[in-house]
C-alpha cells in the first residue's frame, strides 16, 4: 500500500515538475508547481513526518504559491515566446541531463544506504512535538538568527518598495 502511494505521488511530483518547465504560460507553470508541492507533502506524510507535511502544504503550497499566482495575475503576464535554440544546447542538453541525474542518484545511493532512517543532521522525527523541541533547544540559535534575517528582509523590501516622500 505504502509503495503504491509512494509510486503514485512520486510519479505525480516528477511529471508536474517537468510540466513546470514545459508549460509556456506562467500560471500553468505555477499550478504545476503547486501539484509538486502537494505531492511532496504526501511523500513526507508517508515518511511519518506529519508536521513537516502540514507545514509544506500551509507554507509552500498555500502561502508562497498563492503569492506567486497573485503576482502573475497582477502583472497579467502573457505566455512566453519560443526563443531560437542554439545548436550546442540541443546536441548536449539530453546527455548532460542524463549524466547529471545518474551522478546524483549514484551518490545519494552511496551516501545513504537503503536502510538509513530519514534524518536532518542528528535530528529524526517529524511530529509537531519533536520539531518544536528541536527548534527551541538544539537549534535555538540558528532558528532565532533565521527569524532576524527574515525580519531584515521584510524591512528591506518595505524600504525598497516605499514611494519617496516629497
Amino acid at each position, binding site marked *: 500500500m505504502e509503495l503504491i502511494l509512494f509510486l503514485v505521488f512520486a510519479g505525480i511530483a516528477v511529471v508536474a515538475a517537468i510540466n513546470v518547465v514545459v508549460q509556456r504560460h506562467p*500560471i*500553468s507553470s505555477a*499550478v504545476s508547481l*503547486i501539484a509538486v508541492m*502537494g505531492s511532496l*507533502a504526501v511523500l513526507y506524510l508517508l515518511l511519518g513526518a*506529519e*508536521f513537516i507535511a*502540514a*507545514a509544506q*502544504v*500551509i507554507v509552500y*503550497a*498555500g*502561502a508562497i504559491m*498563492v*503569492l506567486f*499566482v*497573485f503576482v502573475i*495575475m*497582477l502583472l*497579467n503576464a502573457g505566455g512566453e515566446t519560443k526563443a531560437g535554440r542554439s545548436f550546442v544546447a540541443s546536441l548536449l542538453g539530453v546527455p548532460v541531463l542524463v549524466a547529471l541525474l545518474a551522478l546524483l542518484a549514484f551518490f545519494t545511493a552511496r551516501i545513504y544506504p537503503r536502510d538509513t532512517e530519514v534524518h536532518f543532521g542528528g535530528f529524526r522525527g517529524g*511530529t*509537531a512535538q519533536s520539531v518544536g523541541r528541536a527548534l527551541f533547544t538544539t537549534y535555538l540559535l540558528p532558528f532565532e538568527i533565521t527569524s532576524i534575517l527574515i525580519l531584515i528582509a521584510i524591512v528591506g523590501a518595505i524600504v525598497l518598495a516605499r514611494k519617496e516622500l516629497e
Partner: protein
Amino acid sequence: MDSFIVISLIKIFVVFGALMTILAYLQWVERKVIAHIQVRPGPYRVGPHGLLQPLADVIKLITKEDLVPPYVNKVLYLAAPFLAITMALLSISVIPFGPKIQVAGYQTWMQLTDLNFGVLFILGISSMGVYGIALAGWSSNNKYALLGGLRSSAQMISYELPLSLAIAAPLLISNTLSLRKLVETQDGWLWNWNLFHGFQYVSFVIFIIAAFAETNRVPFDLPEAENELVAGFHTEYSSMKFASFFMAEYANMITVSCMAVLLFLGGWVAPWPAAYGSGYVPVVIFAVAGVITIWRGLNPRRKRDRYTFPPFGVVFLIVAAVFLVPLLQSALLPLFWFCAKTGAILFLFIWIRGTLPRFRYDQLMGFAWKVLFPVAMLNLLATGLAIAVFS
C-alpha cells in the same frame, strides 16, 4: 479490517448526506432569518413556509444551461469550481461530532478519521481553497472576475495570519493538535471550555472576525461586491459550476463554525455534566416547542395554521421522546450539543449579514494588518506567558 472498511464507508455516506442536506437547508435558514430581520416573510411558496425551496433551487441549478464562454482558459476554468468544492468538503473528514459509540456491537467514533495534526490539516486544506477562487477569477478572462479573484486571494492571505495566531492560543492551553483530544481536554463544566478556562475571549473574537473574512461573508464579502464587481470571481460561471462555488462558501462556513466550537466551546461536551441533568435539556426544549406549536395550531391566528402547525408539533414531540431512549442517548446527546453550538455560530454569521454594511477594501486590509494581527500576536504572547507562569 473488513468491518473497518464497511463502517468507514457507512460513516462517509451518512456524514456526506447529512452535510449536503445541511448545506441546502442552511441557505433556506439564511434567507428566512434575513427576511425576518428585514420584516418580510422570505421564501414562502414552495412547500409549507418555503421548506421545499432548497429542492427547487437544486433542480433549477441542475437544469440551467451550462455555458462555457469561448474566451476562457478551458482547463483552469473547469478545474477551479472542482478545486473549490473539493477543498471545502474535505475538511469535514477530520471534524469529530461526538465520542465513541456502540452500534450493533461495533465500537466507532463519531468522526470520519482522527489525525494527530487535525488542526494543521484543516489550516492546510483551507489555504488550498484560495486557489479555486483565484484561478476562477483569472481563467474567466474578464476584468471583474479577475479583480474579484485578486481581492479574494489578498484578503484570504491577510486574514489567514490572525486566524492561525488565534487558533494557536487555545492549542497552547489544550496542548494537542488532534481535534478529538482537544475536546477531551475541555470535558466537564462550562468553565473547562477553552474560552472561559484559558480566558481566550480575545482570540475567540479574532477567530470569528478572521473566519468571516476567510469565508468571504458580509461585512468582508468584497470579492463579490455586486455594485463594483458584478458578481466577482464567479461572474462567468453558470449552472452547477456556479452552484459549486456557492456550496463551497457554505461548506466553509460550516467548517469554521465547527472549528470555533471545537477550539473554544468544548465541542460535543454539554455545558454541565450529565449527573446534574444536562441530558434532559434537549427533551425539555423539544417538548416545549412541540406543545407551543400544537397550542398555536389549535388556536390559529391564520386559517392555514390549523393544518400546518399540529404536524410540526407532533414531530417535535416525537423528537423529544427519541431523546429519552437510553440506547440512543449516548449518540444523540453529544450530537445535539455539537449541533446546537455550531448552529449558534452559524446563526451569528447570518445575523451579522443582516446587520452590518460592507467594509471598504483599504479598511479591510488595514484592519487585518494594523489591528487584528498585532492583537492576536499579543494575545498569543500573553497566553504563553500565563501558561509558563502558572503551570
